[in-house]
């Protein structure tokens, strides 16, 4: 990740802003330039997802790429947002608690950093729905 590449996407990463196709009613996160159903006739507008969903599948990563080696082991999951789309993110919870179907909500977390001198990357991860939630 370079600075410009992150900066271009940070609104999406911070606030789960994807796209909504006004023609077919489809919701997409990550955002799509073209709705895959309507293609050239799609009418894509930005859409902010609520950040509620459930775990479709998951893994616990023990061996990571260099950017994530200080964070291992961590839970990587595919989350189905309540509005429909699936995305890949981390779930922050006790490793004994993670399970398929777990209800989760978004949380603002550090995604990584470019060395101890470089830029910090922030974005959306997920935490279990729990007593703290209103």
């Amino acid at each position, binding site marked *: 990740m370079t600075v410009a590449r992150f900066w271009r996407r940070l609104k999406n990463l911070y606030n789960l802003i994807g796209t909504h196709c006004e023609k077919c009613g489809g919701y997409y996160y990550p955002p799509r330039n073209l709705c895959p159903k309507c293609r050239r006739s799609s009418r894509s507008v930005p859409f902010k997802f609520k950040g509620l969903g459930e775990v479709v599948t998951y893994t616990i990563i023990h061996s990571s790429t260099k950017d994530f080696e200080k964070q291992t082991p961590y839970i990587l999951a595919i989350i189905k947002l309540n509005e429909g789309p699936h995305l890949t993110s981390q779930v922050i919870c006790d490793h004994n608690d993670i399970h398929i179907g777990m209800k989760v909500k978004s949380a*603002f977390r*550090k995604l990584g950093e470019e060395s101890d001198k470089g830029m910090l990357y922030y974005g959306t991860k997920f935490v279990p729905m729990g007593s703290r939630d209103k």
Partner: protein
Amino acid sequence: MKSGIVSYGAYIPRYRIKIEEIAKVWGDNPNSIIDGLMVYEKSVPDMDEDTITIAVEAARNAVNRANVNPEKIGAVFTGSESHPYAVKPTSTIVAEAIGATPNLTAADFEFACKAGTAAIQACAGMVESDMIELGLAIGSDVSQGAPGDALEYTAAAGGVAYIIGKENILAKIESTYSFTTDTPDFWRREGKPYPEHGGRFTGEPGYFKHVTSAASGLMERLGTKPSDYKYAVFHQPNGKFPTRVAKMLGFSGEQIKPGLVVSRLGNTYSGSCMMGLAAILDIAKAGDRIFMTAFGSGAGSDAFSFSVTDRIDEIRNGAPSVEELLANPTYINYATYAKHKGKIKL
């Protein structure tokens, strides 16, 4: 004053380490430390939590609690002594993450443990002068204590955000008063990972002189006395200092108890006093008056007098309470704590 608190939100990471666990590593007697500090455990950030993520979570809780339109926020000021960037604002990231950009001003504050209350004063000033409609003042820290230093027993993580405005306020700021001198009781030099402190010098010439001066100054200006207040909250680097200063000023144990969160949380630095205030607002009723005095090393104190309005009941359940954030922690050992705090260098 015409301004007040429109909303507030807190955030505390879910991890805790007990005093015993730290004392075991350094061969200290845990009981004498617990008795001396009146602190049993402290909060620890997750691997991927820092001052920025904590500030964002607290700010989001504040926005959600009273359904505030973030686009109406005209200023974001984040007070911290652990901003992840030395240069590059925390507050721009917070503003972006709550959807307040781009029509606003933003800056980061630093004044040891009172940067957050300084941010409240700045927001109140801008609101009172009609420069902005709403201002967001945050105190957030993942405070640093060198391994083996006395500070390690209390340096905790947490953040609190206050939205200041003139309409729909849940607590009016009756007045604020500050007392500031150049007193080097505690510092951290540029590029150094851990702060240094003057030991017992931080007490009398630091904390007690400034807190009592600001508190007395404010009560004198308002013509109030301790018994006029339902609650009082003072900066809480440990449990002992605020208890003692309350007594010196004539406040009772009953008045400070609801806001004394340090025993289960540790010192959240820029969030410390403001967290205590949040815990009080969680239970306060319309008409209650609250007295608050923050302290920041270096040194200065900001005193505030608040009176709670009946709006408080409408927004009370819109975001997690401090009690809920303190509940059901996950306890970790020193090794995990060291990993979370980046004390293990790779």
